[in-house]
């Protein structure tokens, strides 16, 4: 599904990512972990086309997507969320969802002439958006402005927005960061549901319990370097990983 080979990126001398190799198989949940500044978000940005790698390739669904524009990669079926939530704050929850919907006539000619086909698609989009909002239990808020949601609800909305097109691959950057226990459970439940549906997910998360419980494979980065890759059990016993996490007691029970 996703194959990353020999990925390198430097920011003015800082090696943010180097020698990064891993792959995500269809239906698998892969966790990307590492201390702060390890380069996890940079890997996400490289994979989704927001920044260009200095070296290396990203293969998605058999196609080389290295250095393609982010909107093109997104249309190929790769959806992502951001570590710092990126919603459209002054638009409603529903509008946020509708914007993610593919198969909408978003051209200006359609806007001016309003043909019946476009209206039909608008209706279909609306139905699907509301379905998805019900799935994540946000439909009661559908006419609220996104900026008026709580932090946890915003995280949930961002995930829902990334999911609405049934992406081939979902990338979640710290989906559980900063949310309370109830919301954490909700997000876990959601990811479990997606797992049961056979979705393919690559996620970054600092909550070790969460990662160990959810992921099939874990990739560990430290200072931009890939130091370990394996099942959660293997990772928990890996010496390098324990060292990277300063003695390794933190979270790695």
């Amino acid at each position, binding site marked *: 599904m996703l194959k990353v080979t020999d990925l390198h990126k430097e920011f003015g001398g800082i090696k943010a990512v180097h020698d990064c190799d891993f792959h995500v198989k269809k239906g698998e949940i892969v966790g990307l972990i590492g201390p702060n500044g390890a380069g996890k978000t940079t890997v996400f940005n490289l994979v*989704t086309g*927001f920044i260009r790698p200095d070296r290396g390739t990203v293969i998605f669904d058999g196609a080389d997507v290295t250095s393609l*524009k*982010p*909107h*093109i990669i*997104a*249309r190929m079926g790769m*959806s*992502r969320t*951001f570590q710092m939530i*990126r*919603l*459209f*704050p*002054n*638009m409603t929850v529903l*509008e946020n969802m*509708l*914007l*993610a919907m*593919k198969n*909408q*006539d*978003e*051209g*200006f000619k*359609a*806007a*001016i002439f*309003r043909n019946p086909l*476009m209206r039909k698609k*608008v209706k279909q989009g609306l139905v699907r958006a509301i379905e998805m909002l019900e799935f994540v239990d946000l439909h009661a808020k559908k006419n609220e402005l996104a900026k008026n949601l709580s932090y946890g609800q915003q995280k949930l909305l961002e995930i829902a*927005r990334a999911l609405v097109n049934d992406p081939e691959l979902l990338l979640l950057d710290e989906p559980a960061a900063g949310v309370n226990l109830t919301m954490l459970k909700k997000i876990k439940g959601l990811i479990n549901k997606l797992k049961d549906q056979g979705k393919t997910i690559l996620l970054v998360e600092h909550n070790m319990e969460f990662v160990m419980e959810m992921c099939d494979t874990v990739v560990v980065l430290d200072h931009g370097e890939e130091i370990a890759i394996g099942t959660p059990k293997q990772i928990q016993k890996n010496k390098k990983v324990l060292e990277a996490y300063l003695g390794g007691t933190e979270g790695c029970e």
Partner: protein
Amino acid sequence: MYDYLLHIAVLCGIYVVLSISLNLAVGFTGLFNIGHAAFYGIGAYTSALLTLAGVPWWIALIASAIMAGLFGFMVGVPCLRLRGDYLAIATLGFGEIIRAVMKNWTGLTRGPLGLPGIPKPSLFGVQFASIDMYLLLVVVVAIITVVIVNRLVKSPFGRVLKSIREDEIAAKSLGKNVVKYKLQALTLSAMFAGVAGSLYAHYITFIDPSTFTLMETVLMLCMVVLGGAGSIIGSVVGAIILVILPEPLRFISLPSSAAAALRQMIYSVSLILMMIFRPQGIFGETSTTKKFDLRKLLGMKKPKIKLRTKKNA
């Protein structure tokens, strides 16, 4: 007196087209365009030159929209990849370049002497020479503009434009070709400004470069901000208010130099008041002044909106 009122109404109509088209770029898409008067001027000169050369008015009207749109596109291609603030500087420069060309390409534009004797329009034998007829024409064009721009912004297309204003990166992550949409928004915006330019040229029947200045763009921006960025009705009301507001000055006998200065002062004072007490404009949903909060600059902690908004709205 009657003719004077009709004259004001015609100006209102032209500025409605200008402020709505500017709002499409600035308010809805978040493109800080401060060269709108240049598109207005390009439309005016295109239409004037073509009709003076004997081309029928309606063809000249369409040509002025296309010409202005073409320039919008050409400015957009290099600029829209840049971040917001750079676009402002680039369009500012573009506006000045266009004005310099109007002034100095005397072979075409007669420079500062201007183009006199622009014919009044006629269509299917109907003459729009009298002021009543011209008002009718302007009102029709203004209404068409309102309808089209309203359709544009209240559609999936408009939703994408707003999402670009809100968060470009998120829009990209949802598969939107942000550069293409910005380019389309700027081009459409410029086309309507071109139409307004044509309306103006055939109304006044004389144009010269001094009309299409930065001050003119600032006036249009004031209309957008006063009415509310991202609001169609706001642009209509903003344009009408700012056309009418300085008019009473005409009836006080003031030396013309003082009158001009006073006009500018009225614009700026109304804008400053607006930014302090209702930064989102009369009908606006969102503030255009997130980045430079005037209230903070003036050391006012909490805006006292309650009473004043009612008066304004």
